[in-house]
């Protein structure tokens, strides 16, 4: 029968001052781990949450992203009347042809510039993306203002509310120059936590004329139903004339992981690096504990408790200590949940915003990690405690 858990728990609490440094060290390690992974999670989440599963996105075969894809009007003319495509009330096929432009714009804090993704889009394109909605924005003075969509034919732009915080002149009523045109900001959009939160929408025809494009970037299509969807995809991809890639919009976005992976790797790497220090600190603390309790351990052995029980007891204590550190680490990282930040996406090469996403699974991982660190660090001291000869412990004065 093991020693009561209360024994371990009480020992950890009673010596809190001595163990503080170790607990904080573990807390910091877990916090860093959780935060960096939350960053990667946030990026993955915003990709995964993008798109309507009914839609099919068509881009040029071989292009790595919409922004480098080029599709032509001939291609559009060829398949726009395909049977598989849904029709709206006016019997028009539900297709949107978009133009992606990257515009280099100054940041709001004055610290340089970054590429922003403009999407030249039509009314149908807006309809095909129900997760994107207008939200109230702010004017230059900071007052709330209602948003509206751009008027076709005008050089108006609706910017992502999240991007508005990061770039100059993005307040409603503001304007900025890109290329030969001056754009007026008429509204803010909210992408519902998807990749659209990193875009600004303008009229497709205006985009074409301003940026001198005769090709589109992509087509977004609504098929009639499920069966039509797979048929459509097969039909478009199978046509040798086109060299196009067609897939479900949600699938396309889910595959955009280039940005998240290196961050995940970084997070794990950092955690391992820090855990070396944490393991040492735990080892130190537990050696101190064992040293302070040699007589106590000896007494337990006299009473009949086995070596292994002593070993396990100390391991539990170390794990408990680390667990508390892990809890603190999780607690201090939680406030960052939902905090938005941005970086350059490795897929589109434009500024992408996303929110730190701290999930219960991630917190659990952090806690498990902490406990592992505790156990690794406690192992040697626990072995030492278990090997203390019974009498030597009694002989101390």
């Amino acid at each position: 029968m093991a020693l009561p858990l209360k024994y371990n728990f009480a020992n950890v609490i009673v010596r809190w001052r001595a163990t503080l440094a170790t607990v904080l060290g573990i807390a910091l390690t877990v916090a860093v781990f959780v935060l960096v992974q939350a960053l990667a999670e946030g990026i993955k989440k915003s990709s995964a949450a993008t798109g309507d599963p009914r839609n099919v996105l068509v881009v040029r075969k071989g292009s790595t992203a919409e922004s480098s894809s080029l599709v032509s009007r001939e291609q559009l003319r060829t398949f726009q009347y395909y049977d598989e495509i849904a029709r709206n009330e006016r019997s028009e096929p539900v297709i949107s042809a978009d133009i992606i432009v990257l515009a280099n714009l100054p940041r709001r804090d004055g610290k340089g510039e970054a590429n922003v993704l403009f999407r030249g889009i039509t009314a149908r394109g807006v309809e095909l993306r129900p997760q994107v909605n207008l939200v109230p924005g702010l004017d230059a003075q900071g007052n709330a203002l209602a948003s509206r969509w751009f008027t076709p034919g005008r050089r108006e732009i609706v910017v992502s509310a999240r991007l508005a915080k990061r770039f100059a002149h993005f307040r409603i009523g503001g304007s900025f120059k890109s290329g030969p045109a001056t754009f007026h900001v008429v509204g803010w959009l909210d992408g519902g936590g998807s990749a659209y939160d990193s875009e600004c929408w303008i009229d497709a025809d205006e985009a074409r004329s301003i940026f001198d494009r005769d090709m589109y970037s992509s087509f977004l299509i609504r098929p009639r139903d499920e069966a039509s969807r797979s048929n459509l995809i097969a039909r478009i991809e199978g046509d040798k004339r086109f060299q196009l890639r067609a897939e479900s919009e949600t699938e396309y976005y889910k595959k955009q992981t280039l940005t998240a992976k290196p961050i995940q790797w970084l997070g794990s790497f950092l955690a391992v690096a820090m855990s070396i220090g944490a393991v040492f600190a735990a080892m130190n603390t537990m050696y101190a504990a064992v040293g302070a309790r040699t007589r106590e351990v000896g007494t337990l052995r006299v009473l009949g408790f086995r070596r292994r029980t002593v070993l396990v007891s100390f391991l539990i204590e170390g794990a408990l200590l680390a667990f508390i550190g892990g809890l603190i680490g999780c607690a201090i990282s939680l406030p960052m949940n939902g905090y938005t930040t941005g970086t350059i996406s490795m897929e589109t090469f434009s500024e992408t915003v996303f929110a730190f996403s701290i999930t219960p699974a991630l917190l659990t991982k952090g806690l498990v990690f902490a406990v592992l660190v505790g156990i690794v660090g406690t192992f040697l001291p626990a072995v030492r405690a278990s090997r203390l000869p019974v009498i030597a412990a009694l002989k101390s004065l």
Partner: protein
Amino acid sequence: MGATNVVEVRQLTKIYRQGEINVTALNLIDLDIAQGEFLVLMGPSGSGKSTLLHIIAGIDRPTSGECHVQGIDVADLSESRLADWRNQNVGFVFQTFNLIPVLTAHENVELPLLLTRLNRRQRRKQVETALELVGLGDRARHLPRQLSGGQEQRVAIARSIVTDPQLVVADEPTGNLDSHSAHDVLSILQSMSRQAGKTVIMVTHDPKAAAFGSRTVHLEKGELVD
């Protein structure tokens, strides 16, 4: 008082190495202890009295010779069997009390019972009985630091008898106590032997403490003298 011997020591020798030198702590000891005796081991420091006590109690091993306790040669038991044996058959009282500081009196006394198959209720009953016996039933929830030295030692005695062992060994149990508490503790030990029929072996160098025993044995330089 039964005539059976609880402890039979034959030619017991303990030699240990201190660096490069061999020190003979015990030299060919022969000793019998009958059930219900309150035996006192006396002698100057380094005489081997504590060593003898430790061997009988099963926390040290002799270099040669035999030590039978209730028919079992404790020198022969394996580490783990010895642990079990101690738990059931020996109660130990230390000079420095050795209570676990973070556990209450009740929990301290309960410790040896955690190694038995008794359930919670049964354990509680035995702990309460033991604490009553030493007169500390009302202090069950106190932590050691909330008890006086004498009270701590009494809790230790309760712990030493909670598994109802035949043997109770005490190594200078009054060394850290004032005379009043010492008296209480020694009376309890005495009643263990006289009323409960337990065999008590005590090491001390205080003649006043020795007076509580039923027999005194002297050791000098590892040998019995008389």
